[in-house]
């Protein structure tokens, strides 16, 4: 196995992250702070606790998930789309690099970047609310699994996209609404019964709910269901990537 190739791609992508560290980290931190000011302080002060948790604390897992998912997708999609766009992908395709090694390099870097951003948001949240994490190990597992899974998804989008518009269309029109409607900022118990049932069809809901469980020990659905959901989505993404590399879809002519 050409492990050095996977490390090389990983380091190359992380170097890109370092070059843009200011915009990569500062923008999410400022936006998160605004969320806490608006939702936590202004609106949250009017809301009583949710399942015994203050509203400010309640939205922390949702906010981390929001960034973790969108940043994972964006970083991974850009990571593979940009070399396709400028043509430098020929280097990877003509090198002795297997699909697994390329995926580990690109997806690993994207997942690392989004994990760092997720942790920065968590640290920022401590400036506004105080909270104990009930199951830190489960929280870490959820962060890693979510970062990897959504980076895999972003990788697929980056390969599929043939222009910049397509690159952003799925994150904007599908993922962001699913994250917002998946209970990032509210408990589905607060919704009318019909919309509670609709929310159960949203796969992102299971991830946010499971992640919130790691913080507070309570959630709308069993934690096992959340883990099954994230592992299932990961398996689907891996299968799609395997097919992409086997067929050369939008990579090799």
């Amino acid at each position, binding site marked *: 196995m*050409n*492990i*050095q*190739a996977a*490390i*090389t*791609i990983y*380091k*190359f992508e992380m*170097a*890109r992250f370092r*070059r843009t560290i200011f915009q990569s980290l500062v923008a999410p931190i400022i936006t998160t702070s605004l969320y806490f000011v608006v939702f936590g302080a202004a609106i949250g002060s009017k809301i009583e606790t949710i399942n015994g948790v203050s509203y400010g604390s309640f939205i922390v897992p949702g906010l981390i998930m929001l960034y973790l998912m969108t940043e994972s997708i964006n970083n991974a999609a850009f990571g593979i789309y*940009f*070399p396709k766009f*400028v*043509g*430098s*992908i*020929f*280097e*990877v*395709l*003509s*090198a*002795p*690099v*297997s699909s697994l090694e390329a995926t580990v390099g690109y997806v690993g870097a994207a997942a690392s970047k989004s994990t760092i951003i997720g942790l920065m948001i968590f640290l920022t949240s401590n400036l506004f609310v105080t909270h104990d994490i009930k199951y830190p190990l489960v929280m870490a597992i959820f962060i890693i699994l979510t970062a990897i899974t959504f980076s895999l998804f972003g990788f697929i989008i980056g390969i599929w996209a043939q222009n910049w518009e397509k690159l952003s269309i799925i994150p904007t029109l599908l993922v962001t609404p699913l994250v917002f409607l998946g209970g990032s900022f509210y408990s589905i118990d607060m919704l009318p019964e019909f919309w509670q049932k609709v929310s159960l069809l949203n796969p992102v809901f299971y991830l946010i709910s499971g992640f919130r469980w790691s913080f507070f020990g309570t959630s709308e659905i069993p934690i096992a269901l959340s883990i099954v959901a994230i592992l299932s989505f990961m398996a689907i993404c891996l299968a799609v990537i395997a097919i992409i590399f086997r067929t*050369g879809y939008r990579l*090799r*002519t």
Partner: protein
Amino acid sequence: MKSQISIENVSKVFGRHKALNNVSLEIKEGEIFALLGPNGAGKTTLISAICGLCRQSSGNIKVNDFDTLSHYKETRNQIGLVPQELPLDGFESVYNSCQFSRGLFGLKDSRDHIDKILKTLSLFDKRDEQIFGLSGGMKRRLLIAKALAHEPKILFLDEPTAGVDVSLRRDIWKLIEDQKKMGVTIILTTHYIEEAEQLADRVGIINSGEIILVKEKTALMSEFSKKTTFIRLSKKLKDTSFIKKNNKISLTDNGMTLKLLGINNTSNELQSIVNLLSQNGIAFTEINTVDNSLEDIFLDLVESQ
């Protein structure tokens, strides 16, 4: 010489277009092979199939006995590719870009090796600069440096001197010759036939996806050689009747020069014409014979297709 790349009945179809049609070709170890052909002939497609950028629709390609599909790691490990375009990540530095290329081939960072290549290609001073600040010629050289970063045994150069100035072209030619001396097999596609004439050991001509000829360059030049002889006259020719009897002879330069096309070395045609001029009392000041170039041969072959 041992065959290093073996291409057997390779075809590549894009929709209804057959870019490669049953191509068979052997590339020998240590040679410079020039692949010539007009635009859209299939040169880049053939290189792409060997290097793994596209998959052939049928046929087999082997590099040192390894199949390019079933043993792609072994085959790609031996190959360096310089593409036709300038596909580079402009935000990366020259040095890091070369290390990236090296790392993809499973090799650890080697500052010494990369520095040596960059010095050879006159890019050492630019090693820490971002690529988008480089000129077109420098980017072209950087692509060669990247292709050499993993010390390949086989180097593909897809129009390496397209759009570069004369001086840089000479530098690249020297680099190619140096690589050959180091035992690297070089496959070169070019529109500059002069380049193939200067560098190649063997020449292959591809047209409409088919290899129409593969020959040693010297044998090709000799076999298809046509000479043009110019006889500079001492005064303007008044009686041109004897010219009209021979379609190989024409008058140029306002009647001051006779142009003799395709005069054969082995026959006495030139002597006969000189005799004819003497008999008619026509003196001459200079005889100059020019061989036709590889470019003429290439055009003749492609146009006759």
